């Protein structure tokens, strides 16, 4: 099967079956899957909302989810057949003093936008304190999740 490594701030959707892997810390990846066509797409965003700074890239959740949704429809997926799986959003650096953590905000945003779009979330593995490695098989929509065992360097 074709392989693709998904870099942070990019997205991937292709009609051909692929094995897409990515590694998530506080970032969130949203996978969308059309079961009838056997096509999935995935993004990997770092921050919840674009604030008008720099380019409007899929580094930001609101842009990443909308663009992935659009791209899926362009390659023939139907809105009412799409289901979603979300991963990531760990609070890797521990509790900051900001009170509201990036990982949590990324997760909340994914749930919010997906519910606005009316796309059901059929699986999710989010939050916690450790990073994840995920591998998505785009034809079956199956996602393998590896949880990180955290080891501070130097320990």
């Amino acid at each position, binding site marked *: 099967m074709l392989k693709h490594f998904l870099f942070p701030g990019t997205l991937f959707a292709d009609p051909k079956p692929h094995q897409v892997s990515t590694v998530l*810390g506080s970032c969130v990846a949203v996978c969308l899957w059309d079961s009838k066509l056997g096509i999935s797409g995935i993004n990997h965003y770092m921050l919840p909302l674009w604030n008008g*700074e*720099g*380019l*409007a890239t899929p580094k930001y959740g609101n842009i990443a989810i909308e663009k992935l949704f659009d791209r899926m429809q362009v390659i023939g997926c139907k809105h009412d057949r799409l289901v979603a799986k979300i991963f990531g959003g760990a609070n890797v650096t521990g509790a900051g003093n900001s009170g509201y953590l990036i990982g949590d905000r990324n997760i909340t945003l994914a749930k919010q936008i997906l519910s606005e779009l009316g796309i059901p979330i059929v699986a999710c593995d989010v939050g916690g304190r450790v990073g994840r490695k995920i591998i998505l098989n785009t034809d079956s929509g199956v996602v*393998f999740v590896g949880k990180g065992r955290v*080891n501070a360097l130097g320990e």
Partner: protein
Amino acid sequence: MTDDELLTELAKRFSQSEKAFSDLGVLSLKLLEMNQRLEASEALKTNFLSNIRNEIVNPLNSIIGLAGQILHLKDEKDISQIVSMICSEANNLDFQLRNIFIAAALEAGDVDPKIVRVNVNAIIRNVIDSFFGAAVSKSVVITLDVPDNDIPILLATDSEKLEIIFANLLSNAIEFSPPGGVVTVALKLNLEGWLVLTVSDCGAGIAAEDQKRMFDRFTQLDTGTTRSHHGHGLGLCITSSLLELLGGSVMVQSTPGEGAAFSVTLPPFNVFDGEDTFSENDNLFFFDDMSEK
């Protein structure tokens, strides 16, 4: 609970709710400001096509005009002069178009790093060569400062993206230099083995309050119909987006009236090798059991 305890507790609660109110106030001000910026950005995007019209049409017209002239020329010297002008205009057009396409690709999330071992000196020289015509026509001199000419700097990074990053900085430096000015390009590896690339000009410089804003898309500090500089206002935000993708950063140092120096630091790209480890924020992760979702 005694009355005193009750009073201190009450005072504490009051100050807490007061703080919550002021936090909320700050937050809604921020939201208001963000909303204005988003609206401004959208408006700029709408004007984008008319803004870049000149950047595309002018070099293209020059190329067509110059190519037409060659047809009637016989003297070899005249012809080679015109060919070098065509070359310079074509390079300019190529640079503008590549910028527009990479900006579109970045916004679509379609830009992946393609990492190879890159001869940085050669890339920098190529880009300088492609801007030679533009520099000569403004009588701007470009000087290159490298540690050792015989030993080129090698770095694991994306050559095409490094080219675009440097081309944008150089193009800006030439554009904002006064006629007869000097643009200095300095290249070195720092102690950690990161590439440090500095492009300095002796133009008008950038005020401190503008130094953040200029990285926004479609932003030129001097706007409106009387603006005196070319460009589409994408260069610096492309530069910073590409650097983010490659793990680098860009800094600007400037005093108004004394020019500006843009400094890029770029680490060797750390390819995720597909092994079961990953590091973020100095934490190392191991992935062992994979579960199915």
